[in-house]
């Protein structure tokens, strides 16, 4: 009975957190609220060159460069997960429906339920995003949503007790960008106004803390999850683009959340103003290109992240405009992506590792993302 009871205890906590998380979790840091899959695979270095709709979030000053006036009208959705989550959920389903003899055996041996053992080794991490956007040479609009919960159980938590920790990122809202080249054709400016709904729980519960578990299940406990805070903010960016016959140089600067973005709620209450800089070097022929990029985000250390979380570096290779390959360093870990542009359908897949701890190697998550975009790439 003991193993079944503790399994139910853990499940109650996890479901309580997840079911109350319609728009929960966001831990804003120096990263943009929305990133394109291919850009993530390129190490997340997107200040100098981002993919289609991600330009509005990465650096709107990129919009004027690209030739045509009409750029993109379409829809993109992405799904993210760590490799263990699928196995874990399959194990949960099969474990719940297993006959009682199996539970009795493990219980008699004094061992922890195999499903719970697996939960201790492999956190649950999955996510989904959706964006509809329209881009031109001088601006764009978009409506987006991104949610990515993370649930981890460990035998020894921050207080020495078994701990369930729920983190997440949820952003949604609308963005509108405007950009233009200056009199100097190599210099452009851009701005993105954003109306965001955000909720940022980061909750740790000791499994033995019955009071906290009961509170989570109560109406008051659910409120902290299900009430996202709206806020209005502004990002501004600039781009120096020195274009040569076969070599281009890009230098970018950007300020996110100019003056601070205030939210009506308390979690979060504000996105702080941050300053970023990036440099990019592109070697290209008429049809193919290799782009090297390096971003340094949150130059002033406003969010007090260590350096390895603020430096993004990567390489993108585009071949004949329909095949893209990317590699990079994201949070200090290798990343990679591939993209196929099939006129009305664009498929992307990326692999990267995100560090949830404060130092490298403390709490990494290897994540796979696939995205599907459909629309008109003019």
């Amino acid at each position, binding site marked *: 009975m003991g193993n079944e009871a503790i399994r139910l205890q853990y499940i109650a906590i996890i479901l309580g957190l997840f079911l109350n998380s319609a728009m929960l979790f966001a831990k804003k840091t120096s990263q943009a609220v929305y990133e394109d899959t291919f850009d993530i695979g390129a190490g997340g270095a997107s200040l100098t060159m981002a993919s289609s709709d991600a330009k509005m979030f990465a650096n709107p000053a990129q919009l004027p460069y690209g030739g045509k006036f009409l750029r993109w009208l379409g829809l993109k959705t992405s799904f993210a997960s760590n490799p263990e989550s699928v196995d874990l959920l399959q194990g949960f389903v099969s474990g719940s429906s297993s006959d009682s003899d199996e539970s009795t055996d493990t219980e008699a041996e004094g061992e922890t339920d195999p499903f719970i053992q697996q939960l201790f080794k492999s956190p649950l991490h999955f996510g989904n995003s959706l964006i509809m956007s329209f881009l031109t040479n001088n601006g764009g609009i978009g409506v987006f949503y991104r949610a990515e919960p993370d649930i981890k159980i460990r035998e020894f938590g921050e207080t020495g007790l078994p701990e369930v920790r729920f983190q997440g990122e949820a952003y949604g809202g609308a963005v509108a960008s405007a950009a233009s080249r200056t009199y100097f054709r190599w210099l452009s400016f851009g701005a993105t106004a954003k109306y965001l709904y955000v909720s940022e729980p980061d909750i740790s519960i000791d499994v033995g803390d019955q009071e906290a578990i009961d509170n989570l299940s109560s109406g008051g406990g659910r409120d902290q999850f299900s009430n996202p805070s709206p806020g209005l903010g502004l990002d501004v960016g600039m781009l120096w683009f020195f274009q040569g016959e076969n070599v281009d140089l890009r230098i970018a600067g950007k300020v996110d959340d100019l003056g601070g973005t205030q939210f009506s709620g308390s979690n979060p209450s504000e996105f702080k103003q941050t300053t970023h800089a990036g440099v990019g070097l592109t*070697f290209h022929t008429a049809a193919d290109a290799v782009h090297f990029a390096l971003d340094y985000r949150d130059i002033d250390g406003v969010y007090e992240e260590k350096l390895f979380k603020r430096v993004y570096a990567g390489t993108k290779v585009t071949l004949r405009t329909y095949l893209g390959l990317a590699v990079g360093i994201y949070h200090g870990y290798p990343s*990679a992506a591939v993209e196929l542009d099939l006129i009305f359908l664009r498929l992307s897949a990326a692999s990267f590792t995100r560090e949830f701890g404060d130092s490298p190697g403390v709490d990494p998550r290897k994540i796979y993302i696939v995205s599907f975009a459909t629309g008109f790439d003019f």
Partner: protein
Amino acid sequence: MGNGMIKSVLLVMVVCSFARCSQEGNVADCDNPNKGTIADQVPCEAKTDDEKALIALNAGEFDEAIVLLSPLIAQTPTEYFRHPILAAAYAAKAQVKILNLFQSSLGSDGSVFELLGGFLPDAEARGAVYDQDLSNMQQAIDTLLRVPEADRLNTEQTFAKSIQLQLQLYQTAFPVMLLNKHVKTSSENPEEIDAEALEEMTDEEADAIIESLEVAARDDAGGDPALNAKIDEVLAALETQPGASNRERLIAYTQSQNQSGEGGD
């Protein structure tokens, strides 16, 4: 620069980029042995000793966790958040894991000895190491008791509930472990307790067992009320046993539990 030359350069750059980016681990991790020659040029970020201790604890490297935490506590003795983590490390080293104890406390049947017995180290199997397990368990309790009572009971502190729960569990587990030192199966009948081994219990050990149970059951010490009730049941049952001393009553209680088929149903 012809197109062919440029494409060759591009190809070389791509291959080099993929090769470099195939390195495992974090390039900024000082503890990563696979960083590679280029990453060696990148300034690394070291984990704090607190982070290392938690990683070691969850990896089952309890000695490493103790080695990391002990000097930190010595340097900043009033930063009490480390005490429950160190206590958990000592307890785990004594083969006593909170998760297993927590599982047992969710059950509603059986005495506290029956509940915990299946999740504590087997004294017979541990042999000569068992005394070290007892010593580590005592270290776990002492570590928690070094936190002033006012701070242990201050629920505004994130670590207070952990200290209360761990203290109750360890102060309950420790007397059971002491008793189990003398509860051995008979060589003639595996389902019976070896009476001679039980008689080897000293008065001091019996007093320590009873005293630990009484401390664990204190209502003002925090902890799980259900477990408090279980301990009270045992203390009440001990009072009804024949004998003039704690030792005699404890031996009588243990023998009576064995005769009534403890833990069987």
